[in-house]
């Protein structure tokens, strides 16, 4: 284990209580140069994500929530401002493999079976074979796919594929999990189930999660902090902290607290829209 690039899944308990900034964006702006006119995707974003938080970006399409996530992942280059991950640049953080990214689509490689898809990052990082296989076993069990290691992605349902892609993002034990509408293409029943599973994973692994969604119930249910964004130019209009217990279940969606926060998110989104007109 000592030679591996990452440690075991269970973090030491003292980590949880400690406040430590993992993501810090200051005056972050990002402009896409298109043929006719520049598109202001992000404008003067200030954001802090603490260790162990579950942060959701919510907003209508075109509000830059995905762009912000991609800027954190160093998949987009900001045009102004700064962004730091654990005190280093996003670029360095990517080279340090400090985050696992879950895309909108599972992006599993069809020529690899599920096990070898999950071990792909470990192969890139040069982990020995036996350890890779052990990790794959462990994380496939974690996402309830233990019996499907030898199946090919196209033999699995969409929800199972997305779970495999989450296992792939977790298996090299990155500190941060970046998720870009991972359940957007799934039906609501599967989505609820995966949301619950994701919360359990988050609770168990003590990871920092940054999650992009356009579903209000999803954002409220999952998050410790909800970042409400509005489009043209993409900016943050509200940051809402929630205090639900870490081991919450879907039942909390019926509580008054939940509905109140959902209401505040909806108000925020509406305000963002009226500004646009």
């Amino acid at each position, binding site marked *: 284990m000592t030679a591996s690039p990452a440690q075991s899944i269970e973090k030491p308990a003292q980590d949880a209580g400690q406040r430590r900034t993992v993501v810090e964006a200051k005056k972050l702006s990002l402009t896409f140069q298109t043929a006719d006119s520049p598109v202001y995707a992000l404008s003067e974003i200030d954001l802090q994500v603490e260790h162990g938080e579950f942060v959701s970006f919510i907003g209508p399409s075109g509000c830059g929530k995905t762009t912000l996530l991609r800027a954190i992942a160093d998949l987009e280059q900001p045009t102004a401002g700064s962004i730091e991950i654990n005190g280093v640049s996003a670029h360095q953080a*990517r080279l340090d493999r400090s985050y696992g*990214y879950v895309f909108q689509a599972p992006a599993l490689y069809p020529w690899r079976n599920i096990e070898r898809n999950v071990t*792909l990052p470990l*192969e*890139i990082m040069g982990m020995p074979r036996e350890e890779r296989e052990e990790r794959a076993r462990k994380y496939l069990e974690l996402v309830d796919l233990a019996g499907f290691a030898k199946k090919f992605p196209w033999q699995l349902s969409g929800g199972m594929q997305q779970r495999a892609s989450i296992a792939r993002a977790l298996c090299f034990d990155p500190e941060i999990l970046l998720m870009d509408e991972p359940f957007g293409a799934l039906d609501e029943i599967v989505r609820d189930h995966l949301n619950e599973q994701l919360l359990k994973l988050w609770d168990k692994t003590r990871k920092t999660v940054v999650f992009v969604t356009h579903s209000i119930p999803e954002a409220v249910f999952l998050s410790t902090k909800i970042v409400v964004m509005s489009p043209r130019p993409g900016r943050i209009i509200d940051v809402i902290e929630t205090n639900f217990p870490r081991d919450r279940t879907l039942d909390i969606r019926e509580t008054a607290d939940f509905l109140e926060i959902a209401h505040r998110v909806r108000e925020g989104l509406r305000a963002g829209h009226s500004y646009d007109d």
Partner: protein
Amino acid sequence: MIARLDKWCVAAAVLGLTALLFPPVAGGRWTDGPEFLGAAVLLVALSGFFAWKGVTAFWHSATLVLLVIAATAISLGFIHAIGDGMTTGSGFWLFNLALWAVAWRGIDGIAAFRSTNPRWQRLANLFVPAAFGLWMIYLWEIAVVGFGVPQVLLPAPGMIGDRFMGSLDILWEDFQQTFMKAVLAGYIMGCGSGFLVAILVDRVPFLQRGLLPLGNLVSALPIVGVAPIMVMWFGFDWQSKAAVVVIMTFFPMLVNTVTGLTASGVLERELLRSYAASYWQTLFKLRLPAAMPFIFNALKINSTLALIGAIVAEFFGTPIVGMGFRISTEVGRMNVDMVWAEIVVAALAGSAFYGVVSLGERAITFWHPSFRERR
């Protein structure tokens, strides 16, 4: 009642009965050849029976196919036994029309065969194209022999077969010279260099502007112009033919690989970027596997191009062995059956080569949507 009769079998029975009214040999009688008469009577009887009974079960179709096999054998014996100066009569051709109807119905029945045992199913699937091919050869044989087509224009398949079996040693030498040496060497070098240059073009983008047009130019060169030059450069033996094959196979491989390397999706590439993967890791873990369907396309195109290239190149100077050499000399000596025997060798070798490449494709790109259903 009439609507329930099997149409093809009715046609066969009617045609067969009509055939019996006309002489099978011009100026002859059916009774002159008892075997052929027997075949015709059996044909009429069986097709009449199945017209009434209907072709529903597998054994019905199988019986019809067996009837066709027996009848074609007798018909072939009959037509080859006709002496010189005599020609076939309309009875013979009507008989074959009836046979055609029966064959159609029988093969139709076997094509509809469905079995849960995959081995039987595969056998039935293989039978249909094979039967079709054999039937075409039979028609070719009776047409050439029956109408007395000069063998310089078109030899009968039987004659080509005799020549093929009688010249196995020469054909084998030619095959070794042309296929085992020129084609395989040229194919491996042409495809290999096309592939490597594609990687180079991908790694060094400015080469894309320089090398791709150049490769395009080379592939546009006419083979009849290039082949003599290659003979002057590399000598008479197989090396010059391999050089022609290299020129023909290089460009399809280059273009297909370059295109294939761009075939991976954006998400798949960003995934590797998020792992901070190197260029070579991205190439081997993602871009080459994603390019495989394109690369196999090039390998398949090239498998037939290579054979054509090598055979044509041998028209421009070669030692006295090789498939192209044999074709060009034997056609000059009017030995058209030998030319056809070489064509058979080329067809068999080309199909086998293509088949082997296809098998490799299926094994490696099994994940591609076009192959998934078959797993």
